[in-house]
Structures are given as structure tokens and as C-alpha cells.
């Protein structure tokens, strides 16, 4: 890969032709095109009317039940389940179409072929293997259901005036809900279907080659050469998905993104990346388009999901740790590259890989710096995911505090959920929610870093930066990313919460933009690997300063998050903690 394409180069000026010839804008238009297609598909051709009817009926039942009983009755939960089942991605033609044609290789245990081809016989064997557990869970659910029905009937017979009967009914209903969830999880494992992803993968490769090829052509490069090389980059991404689907690799957090870099680097540094592949290693184009799509997942309403304690743990501690770590890296460790310093700081303090990608693109970090940062994050995340729950259990921290600690410090969301669930259900819920709030910070981080780089880092000594110069230098894709985030936050806030969850979250986002975003990041990591030299990477690692920075920053993060979580959840808002 040419050195020039590993960073975004400032041209110090803007013209109208930038709109259709520069990578930043083209990433925005491509992102907008995919988002627009998904929005139109789900909102105008989706099952909106059917969903509205179901939601209205369920709301009516819930209102009646709330008026009838002082607690959430079984009928109330039944109506809630009806609403939860509404998913644009599985309940509409567009959802099924996008889901089918963006499929990536999935999980496997001993045979990699299982990740992309499964015969009917294999599917049936899997279903039969999981059937006894489901039958057991179903029997437990039926027993719990009878208990809940009897307890609620007893409470209803007393006109819900007997507190003891009400409490007993609530307890029985909770047991039934837990049993129902377990039965639901077990049932999903008996619904395996046969598949063959090879034709859809070929189709997807052609579609991506076409849409990115148009962008490449508009940038003045050879679209045909890109398309030929792209087939190889896509192939490496598919292999990365296959390797990342192996159960043990997944357990240690080594997913498709890491495998993309590993496989790409193995090729680049041994047999060497073929020359015809290099025109397709468009790392920034893939990343920026993926980031514009990621904007749809950065919803500001999520910030209040756990009230003020969550805001303090995720939105007060995180910027403090980010800025302190960056200053520490500059002043104490004297890390030569400011971009490497900020990418590691953001990766460690905000939310791992996704924050590293957004920050690296916003400050125009080199691909080696992003690779190094993500590599370190993977190693420390794997360690913390296992060690932190053990420490929490050993010192006897309560679940809510432990969950908040995990959510605020472990990098990736999957690892946070794994570590939280290891402690218990409450810890999982708190940890996952805190991490989700932190995830939303990506938008602010990317914008803040981009502005800081334009105003401070890239500024000539002693010179004032004019408004026009800020505009010239500002990475424009960040504006596309923020615009999408603001638009989706607005839609999320304006829509009925149930309809928003069914059509926006479980439709446009999870059944559309996210599927493409996932692929674009996988493609960018494969492209990074294919164009990265081990020697250049080693150069950034000199003196072990990146590791020292990560360890010091994470230690500070651990202390500050624990203190803040304790103050917020146990001293200032114990009522919230009690309700969790």
C-alpha cells in the first residue's frame, strides 16, 4: 500500500469538486445511501401497520392490568412479550433479504466448513442434541407457570388487597419469568437450520466491489484494478470471519477483526501481498464508510439508561482518564507520536476497538498505530475479562458495584457482558448498560479529537487558525458520522419507544446498517494487515512505551471508576441501586 493512502493528507483548501472526488465525502455519500435504503425499506415497505396494531393491543392490555393490580401481572408480561417479539429484521421481507445477503461465516467447533455450510442432517443432529435440555427447561417453565397462575389467582381473589399474597404472586411471577427466559434460550438452540453461504458471499463481494468501485472511479483511480484486488481483500475477510468464529478463539476475544490483521500481516510479511491487491487496500475508505454507518448506533438517549450514576461512571470518569492518559503519554512517557498516544488513550478509556477506529480516523493516525492499539486492547481485554470478576468475587464486592466497575474498565462490550454475567445477572445488566453508555461517547470523542488536532496539533507555531482553515482541515466524514448519530437519536426520541425498538433498533440498525458496518470494518482490518510491515510496527513499539501507557492509564481507570461507582451507586443514589 502506498504510504500516502495510510493517512488522510491535507490539501489546505476546499472546492466543490471535493464533494464527489474526495474520500471523506464519498464515504459519507455511500454511508447515507445505505442508511437511506434501509430507512426506506423498513419504514415504507416494512410491517409498520401490523406492528402498530400489536403495540396498541398490548398497550391496552398493560393499561388495564396496571389499573387492576398493584404489580405487573402475567397478562402484563404476556403483552410485553408480544411487543418484544416485534423485530423488523425478522418480521419483514427487507429484513430477511438483507439478513440473507449480508451473512458472514458463523461459529464452529472442530470443522471450519461448519461456519459457512450446514446440511439438513447436521442441523437436525444439532437440534436433537439440544432437545433434552429444552424439554427440561420447558417442563420447568410449565411448573413455574402453574405456580405463578395459582399465586396470582389467590392475590386476585383477595382483590389485590392482601400484601402477603401480592408479594407471593410477584415472587412466583419472577420465577416463571426466569424459567421462561431459560426455556426461550434453550429453544433457540433447537432451531438450527441448514445453510450455504457461498453463493451469498459471492454476491456480497460483487455488490461491495461495485459500490466501492464507483467511489474509487470518482476519486480518479482505476475501478477495474480495484475490483480485481478487492476480491482478494474480501476473501481474506471471509477467512478472518471463519477463524474468528472458532469457539476457543472467540472465548479469548480473538474475533474477525484481529484475524483480518493477523492473516493479512502473515501474507504481507512472508509471501508478500500481490501487487494487484494493493489498489484494493483502501483502509480509510472502508473505515470512514463504516464509521458513518456506526453513527446510526450512537444514540444519545442511551446515556440516561441507568440514571445519573451511569452518567458519572461512564461520561465523567472516561474523559478524565482519556485526557489524563494522553497528557501522561506526552509529558511523562514522551511518546514521540501524538496520534499513537491518543489512539491508545481512547481505546483504553472509552470502549476498545470501536473507539480506536473512530479516534484513529479522526486524528489521521497511521494504520500501524491503530493495529498496535487494537492488539494491546485485545490482550488486556482477554486478561481483564477473566481476572476482574475473580478479584470482585474474592474481595466480595456487591454485584451492582462489580458490574459498574467491569462496564467502565473492560474495553470491548462482548468481554464486558461475559465478565458481568460471570458475576451474576444484576452485574451483567449494570456492566452492559454502563458500557453501552460509554459506547455512545465515541461520537463526542471523535469530534473532540478531530477539533483538537485541527486547532492545536496541526497548527503552525504562533499562527492563528481561521474558520476557513478549520473547515479545510477538518476530517469531513466525522460530520457525516455526527449527522447520522443526531438524526437517529432524534428519530429514536420522537418515535413511540416500542415502535422505535422494533423498526429502528431491531430493523434499520441491527437488520441493516450494522450488518454493513461489520463487513466494512472487517474489510478495513484485512486491508490493514495486507499493507502492514512488521518492521514498521516494531518501530512504534520501541521501548515498550505503548504498553506502559496502556497499563498506567488502565490502572488509573480502575481506581477512578471503582471510587466513582461506589460514591454514585452506594452513597449518593442508593435508592437506584436498591431498585436494580
Amino acid at each position, binding site marked *: 500500500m502506498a504510504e500516502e493512502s495510510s493517512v488522510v493528507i491535507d490539501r489546505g483548501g476546499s472546492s466543490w469538486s471535493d464533494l464527489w472526488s474526495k474520500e471523506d465525502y464519498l464515504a459519507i455519500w455511500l454511508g447515507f445511501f445505505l442508511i437511506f435504503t434501509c430507512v426506506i425499506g423498513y419504514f415504507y415497505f416494512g410491517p409498520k401497520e401490523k406492528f402498530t396494531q400489536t403495540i396498541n393491543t398490548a398497550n391496552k392490555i398493560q393499561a388495564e392490568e396496571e389499573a387492576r393490580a398493584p404489580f405487573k401481572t402475567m397478562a402484563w408480561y404476556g403483552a410485553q412479550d408480544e411487543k418484544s417479539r416485534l423485530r423488523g429484521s425478522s418480521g419483514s421481507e427487507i429484513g430477511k433479504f438483507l439478513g440473507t445477503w449480508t451473512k458472514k461465516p458463523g461459529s464452529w467447533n472442530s470443522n471450519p466448513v461448519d461456519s459457512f455450510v450446514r446440511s439438513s442432517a447436521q442441523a437436525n443432529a444439532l437440534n436433537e442434541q439440544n432437545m433434552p435440555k429444552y424439554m427440561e427447561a420447558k417442563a420447568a417453565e410449565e411448573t413455574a407457570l402453574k405456580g405463578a397462575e395459582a399465586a396470582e389467582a389467590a392475590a386476585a381473589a383477595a382483590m389485590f388487597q392482601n400484601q402477603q399474597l401480592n408479594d407471593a404472586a410477584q415472587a412466583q411471577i419472577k420465577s416463571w419469568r426466569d424459567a421462561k427466559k431459560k426455556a426461550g434460550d434453550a429453544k433457540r438452540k433447537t432451531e438450527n437450520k441448514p445453510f450455504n453461504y457461498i453463493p451469498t458471499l459471492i454476491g456480497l463481494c460483487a455488490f461491495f466491489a461495485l459500490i466501492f468501485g464507483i467511489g474509487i472511479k470518482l476519486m480518479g483511480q482505476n475501478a477495474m484494478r480495484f475490483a480485481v484486488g478487492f476480491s482478494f481483500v474480501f476473501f481474506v475477510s471471509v477467512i478472518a470471519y471463519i477463524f474468528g468464529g*472458532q469457539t476457543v478463539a472467540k472465548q479469548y*476475544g480473538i474475533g474477525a477483526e484481529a484475524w483480518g490483521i493477523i492473516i493479512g500481516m502473515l501474507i504481507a510479511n512472508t509471501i508478500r501481498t500481490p501487487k494487484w491487491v494493493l489498489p484494493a487496500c483502501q483502509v480509510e475508505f472502508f473505515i470512514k464508510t463504516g464509521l458513518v454507518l456506526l453513527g446510526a448506533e450512537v444514540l444519545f438517549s442511551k446515556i440516561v439508561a441507568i440514571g445519573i450514576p451511569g452518567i458519572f461512571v461512564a461520561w465523567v470518569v472516561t474523559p478524565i482518564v482519556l485526557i489524563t492518559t494522553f497528557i501522561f503519554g506526552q509529558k511523562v512517557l514522551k511518546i514521540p507520536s501524538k496520534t499513537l498516544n491518543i489512539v491508545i488513550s481512547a481505546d483504553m478509556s472509552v*470502549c476498545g476497538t470501536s473507539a480506536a477506529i473512530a479516534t484513529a480516523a479522526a486524528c489521521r493516525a497511521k494504520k500501524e498505530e491503530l493495529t498496535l492499539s487494537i492488539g494491546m486492547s485485545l490482550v488486556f481485554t482477554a486478561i481483564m475479562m477473566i481476572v476482574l470478576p*475473580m478479584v470482585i468475587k474474592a474481595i466480595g464486592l456487591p454485584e451492582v458495584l462489580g458490574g459498574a466497575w467491569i462496564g467502565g474498565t473492560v474495553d470491548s462490550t462482548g468481554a464486558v457482558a461475559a465478565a458481568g*454475567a460471570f458475576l451474576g445477572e444484576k452485574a451483567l*445488566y*449494570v456492566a452492559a448498560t454502563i458500557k453501552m453508555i460509554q459506547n455512545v461517547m465515541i461520537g463526542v470523542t471523535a469530534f473532540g479529537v478531530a477539533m483538537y488536532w485541527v486547532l492545536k496539533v496541526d497548527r503552525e507555531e504562533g499562527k492563528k487558525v481561521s474558520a476557513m482553515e478549520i473547515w479545510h482541515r477538518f476530517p469531513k466524514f466525522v460530520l457525516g458520522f455526527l449527522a447520522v448519530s443526531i438524526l437517529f437519536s432524534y428519530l429514536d426520541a420522537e418515535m413511540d419507544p416500542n415502535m422505535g425498538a422494533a423498526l429502528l*433498533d431491531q430493523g434499520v*440498525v441491527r437488520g441493516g446498517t450494522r450488518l454493513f458496518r461489520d463487513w466494512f470494518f472487517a474489510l478495513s482490518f484485512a486491508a490493514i494487515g495486507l499493507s502492514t510491515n512488521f518492521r514498521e510496527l516494531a518501530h512504534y513499539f520501541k521501548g515498550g512505551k505503548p504498553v506502559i501507557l496502556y497499563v498506567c492509564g488502565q490502572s488509573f481507570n480502575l481506581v477512578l471508576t471503582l471510587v466513582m461507582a461506589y460514591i454514585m451507586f452506594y452513597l449518593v443514589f442508593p435508592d437506584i441501586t436498591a431498585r436494580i
Partner: protein
Amino acid sequence: MAVENKKSRLRRFLFACAAVIAFVYGFLPWLTQSLSPLRQMQQHLQETGIDPSRYYYTDVEQVSEAEAYLRERL
């Protein structure tokens, strides 16, 4: 000379692939089976279906569950 170079690069590639595969699919499973906390974590992940390699909240199903739970409780 060029053929020799090609052969040597191919050898390095195969060796590197073998090393990586042996590490991930040999060493890591052995490590998991050797240490009790890792074994427990593996069983726990298999039961819950959580994928620790997913990095954003929309990739992890359990986050939606957590959100729904907290919305109901708070």
C-alpha cells in the same frame, strides 16, 4: 535466485501459519483445560452464548436485555 527467494518466503508463510494455528487451536484450548477459572469461563460462555470478541453494544444481544431490565426496574 528468485525461485529460491520465493521458496523461502513460502516456507516462512507456512511456518508462520502453523505457529499461529498451533497457538490458537492448540495452546489456547490446552490453557483453557489446564486452568480452572478459564474452564469455568468457557462453560459459562457456552451456556450464555455471549461472544467476547464483539466490541460494540449493538453486537451483543445481552445489552438489549440489560436495557429492558433496567427500564422496567427504574
